[in-house]
């Protein structure tokens, strides 16, 4: 187990290094693009251009450029956004993180609960008309673009119905931090949570149903039934427990992807000022330093979480540990 953990973590470090190299190549070495021009924002003045060149060492050897960039991102953390009045990028990202985490955590709770309910019901109701109905609903969830669903939500809750008692409690678009007002925080996040969770409810319900049906024909389930255990106990202690292994590892990956930037569409459509919204604003100003920093930090978060998921998976299920 220890060897596995060490090997997995070493690989994680390698991947992180390669990611920084890839991002560096994309932003500094795309053929035909002058990186100083690209990084200095829209219509930079010659002074700003020279400043950028000097700061990033663009006339020095490649590996020095790479080193300087990484130093600015990770050690001194003083990467400057030129389109945003010289705002420091890294503190901005960390200030935006709580909004993203609130959004993703809440959505995760909803999608886990609803997906388990849907998946288990569909598997239990196999052969009846409810199973295909549930699965078609799940498929519609998977097929709906999340930003459009967000618009439809806004149209319903902020449009004409906003003045009726049904949706009058929904605050205007935006994010209120939990410390400012827990009630507003919750009210403002209810529809973003639901919107973000729909896709994952569809995915997880389908995977869980398939997994449950597959496990139902295993020998140990037959043994459990033969022992005279109740259907309920077989489901809770044997079937569902085994399929949780797949469920948990999937969850780790998706959760990481959402925190690492995947929630950008939901954040933009609901005006939640998280990391994704920051990226979107940077896109509107062609503010490349911010985008670069978000991509690197987002990818690092995902890679790290993937490593943790793999280690947790190996700990739960010794069969996957390579010898």
């Amino acid at each position, binding site marked *: 187990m220890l060897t596995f953990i060490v090997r997995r973590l070493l690989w994680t470090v390698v991947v992180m290094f390669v990611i920084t190299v890839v991002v560096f190549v994309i932003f500094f070495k795309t053929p035909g693009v002058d990186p100083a021009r690209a990084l200095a924002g829209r219509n930079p003045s010659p002074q700003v251009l020279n400043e950028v060149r000097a700061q990033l060492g663009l006339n020095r050897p490649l590996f020095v450029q790479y080193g300087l960039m990484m130093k600015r991102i990770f050690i001194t953390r003083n990467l400057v956004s030129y389109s945003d009045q010289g705002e420091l990028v890294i503190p901005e990202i960390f200030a935006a993180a709580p909004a993203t985490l609130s959004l993703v955590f809440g959505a995760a709770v909803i999608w886990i609960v609803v997906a388990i309910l849907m998946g288990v019901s569909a598997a239990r109701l196999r052969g009846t008309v409810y199973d295909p109905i549930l699965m078609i609903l799940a498929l*519609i969830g998977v097929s709906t673009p999340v930003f459009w669903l967000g618009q439809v939500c806004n149209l319903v809750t902020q449009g004409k119905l906003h003045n009726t008692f049904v949706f009058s409690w929904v605050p205007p678009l935006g994010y209120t931090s939990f410390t400012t007002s827990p009630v507003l925080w919750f009210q403002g996040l209810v529809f973003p949570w639901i919107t973000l969770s729909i896709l994952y409810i569809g995915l997880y319900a389908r995977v869980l149903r398939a997994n449950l049906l597959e496990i139902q024909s295993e020998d140990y389930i037959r043994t459990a039934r033969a022992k005279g255990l109740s259907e309920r106990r077989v489901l809770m202690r044997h079937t569902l427990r085994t399929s949780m292994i797949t469920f948990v590892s999937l969850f780790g990956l998706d959760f990481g992807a959402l925190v690492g930037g995947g929630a950008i569409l939901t954040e933009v459509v609901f005006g939640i000022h998280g990391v994704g919204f920051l990226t979107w604003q940077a896109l509107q100003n062609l503010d490349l330093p911010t985008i670069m920093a978000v991509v690197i930090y987002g990818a690092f978060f995902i890679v790290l979480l993937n490593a943790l998921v793999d280690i947790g998976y190996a700990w739960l299920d010794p069969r996957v540990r390579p010898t």
Partner: protein
Amino acid sequence: MAALIEQVQTSELRSAAAGRSPWALAWRRLRRNRIALAALGLFLLIVVVCLAAPLYAHHVAHDGNVLSPNLNGTTIVHGKVVPVMQEGGGLLKLGETPIGPTWDISHYFLGADGLGRDVAALVLYGGRASLQIGICSAVLCCIVATVVALIAGFFGGVTDAILSRLMDVIWAFPVYLLAISIATELLTHSNGLQVGFLHVSATSLWTPTVIIAFIYVPYVYRPVRGQVLSVVNKEFVEAAIAQGASNFRLIFAEILPNVVSTVIVLLPLMIATTILTESALSYLSVGVQPPNVSWGTIISDGQDLLYTRPWVSLAPGIMIVLTVLALNVLGDGVRDALDPRAKVRV
């Protein structure tokens, strides 16, 4: 019950057996799946309707070109001539609101967008771009991934290790962020990308196509490589080697036909994914660039008109849902048809 199903399956196999190729059998199974066929029909219908966009545009054309702004134009509602852009409400009559849906098929059926363009015609043209990008990038992605998977699986060893690790790195990136960073880099300079003799202009539909194809390569590579590995040591490959077949022939004539069904199962699902990705990138303004329109850009433009003219973003969104749903259902059907032994369907 299980025994009965087995019996039915064997009898089906027996009756189907004589001299039919696996492809013919798969096609027969797909033909029996009514839901999958309906989905295929819906998808083809959407494709045909979108391809017919110029016909409809000709029918509703106001100034010849549906994609150019029509801020000062007029149209006919209930036999009366009205301006496309109507004066804003209130005492000051500030701002202009585009005309809403007239539900008259020849005059602004779904109303106008912020530039006074016919939304119904825009949705059709947007569909052309979305479908073109979705289908081309999915096909491109599958071809590249299959070739890489064939090389990795066939040669094994160091080649396999390097290629697989490379794919792992692309896989590790957040999908949208990778696409966004490549796209912004390409959009910051208006000359487009110059690779050798190939030149892609920044506003071309091929820019998002290539970006989307690239980011999804690992998602196709993994299952295909697995399939290659399971085939590469089979007897028929050894027999071909014994006959002195070249590596090229081994890869493309012996192994490829045995992994192509995996790729075909993935293709409709990939098109569904790439269409969703294209719309998301266009919504974030890093996908399709003006003057081109796609379903994603229409939804993005419709955000400003959401509360006054909701149909501007509702219509393209409904088209995306229908298209992607049809492809997902079709994908399930294709998998059932090509891989009937898979234990349980997702």
